[in-house]
């Protein structure tokens, strides 16, 4: 289990980005973090992957304190992180990046199966460079594919729906549902997408750096949808 305890994050450009956030991500479960933009969701994902070190609080992976652990060591321990904004690389093609993700040479058949999950054909993409010649949506799908190639136990997706077309998104939902079936895999997805919220086991709402609601999908989702319509204040305050 991945457990965050009382995580607080202050950055030079913003104080109290996160305040006393606690949550657990369990194997065999899909947890979705949602909430208004700027609320601290991506910062939380970066803390899990090791890109940020929390100002206070602890992170435990299978009861081991990994709060100070490096990005690399966390990756080796089984944490994978799909960036919200994919990274481009001049001279590195999709095949190489996927092989790095897989920890060694990857068969074309396996690459084909993984890329298919994000709506891409390996034959068309494996030799293409990860640079500006790919569209934003293609980059995003390959970013997700690299994380799927890790075969990690704890997977964090930061807004996987962004930039993805409707048809590929359906494949992606199927990929998430398939990952959910694996009792050894814990999924954490940051998303605003209703279709992703609908397949969640747990939903955590973060507003203004704090957990405002959390619980099972049946507990949180109906209220979330209601709030999403009339009289909705993104900060959870009463309307004038």
């Amino acid at each position, binding site marked *: 289990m991945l457990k965050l305890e009382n995580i607080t994050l202050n950055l030079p450009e913003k104080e109290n980005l996160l305040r006393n956030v606690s949550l657990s991500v369990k194997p065999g479960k899909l947890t979705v973090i949602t909430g208004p933009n700027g609320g601290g969701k991506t910062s939380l994902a970066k803390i899990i*992957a*090791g*890109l940020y070190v929390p100002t206070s609080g602890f992170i435990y992976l299978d009861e081991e304190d990994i709060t100070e652990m*490096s*990005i*690399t060591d966390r*990756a*080796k321990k089984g944490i*994978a*992180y799909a*960036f919200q904004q994919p*990274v481009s*690389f*001049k*001279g*590195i093609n999709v095949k*190489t*990046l996927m092989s*790095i*993700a897989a*920890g060694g040479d990857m068969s074309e058949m396996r690459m084909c199966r993984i890329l298919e999950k994000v709506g891409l054909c390996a034959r068309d993409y494996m030799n293409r460079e990860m640079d500006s010649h790919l569209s934003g949506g293609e980059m995003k799908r390959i970013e997700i594919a*690299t994380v799927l190639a*890790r075969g990690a136990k704890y997977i964090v997706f930061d807004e996987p729906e962004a930039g993805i077309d409707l048809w590929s998104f359906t494949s992606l939902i199927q990929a998430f549902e398939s990952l959910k079936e694996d009792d050894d895999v814990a999924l954490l997805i940051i998303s605003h997408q209703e279709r992703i919220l609908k397949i969640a086991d747990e939903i955590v709402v973060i507003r203004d750096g704090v957990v405002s609601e959390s619980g099972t999908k049946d507990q949180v989702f109906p209220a979330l949808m209601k709030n999403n319509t009339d009289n909705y204040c993104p900060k959870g305050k009463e309307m004038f």
Partner: protein
Amino acid sequence: MDKITEEILREITDWDGVFSGAYSLRENGECISFQNSDHIRIVKKEDKPGIDIYISDKAQQETVYIPACVTKSDVHDLVYNDFHVQSGADVTIVAGCGVHTDAEEGSNHNGIHRFFLERGSHVVYKEKHIGIGEGGGKRVIDPVTYAELDDGAVLEMETLQLGGVNETTRDTTAILKKNASLIIHESIMTDNDETASTKFSVDMVGEDSNVDLISRSVAKGNSFQEYSSAINGKCRCKGHSECDAILVGNGRVNASPALNASSIDANLIHEAAIGKIAGEQIIKLMTLGLTEEEAEERIIAGFLGA
């Protein structure tokens, strides 16, 4: 053959003990062996060091090797190689040079290559330069390239220098006639106190000729690289140049790309970027399990196409 020559050949070509087809092997300033093929004839120059390589139109997807190896200190090699490629020929030329020094005296190799590509011929030119050895003597490689491309001819040049060469000055000039294409991919990495200077000048004089010049360089340590290019569009033509450089440590790069259009129908584009490795690239690879050092190596190797 010198053991060091064997080592250099493995590095700069795909040599596995024997060259099949036409080749000319140069060692410490002398041609030590050569071989013709049915369609490629190599003739030693009478008036100066070097060879003429005559490639007939019957040469289709053949490869000719012309590596040069300097295996010891105090060798100063100057060679003139001319390639005469007949109309319709389709060949790969594997050149490349390695300089090894093991004493305080330096060694250098200056290869002056001229390409004469007749109408519709196609040449892929691969050139890899390396410097090796423990000696303090400088390892210097100064290639000079001149290319004339007749109507519809295509010259693809892939040049790679991955370090160990203390100084290099590279000078490439080309003239492109109607529908001719020149594609150049240059990759250079320098480290320590090494210096590299690269100069390109391409004249597009024939309608619908085109050039694509891509230069990628990595300057590490205290090394310095200087890049200049001039793409001259004198008619309806297309020119694209892209020079990107990565700085590591105290490495320095000066880039001066120039586009000169003297026809309203010349279409010339330039892209350039110099900077350190993007932090997000390193972090992304670290999230895939690489250490920071491994990530940096992979990024540089990919960038240079090494």
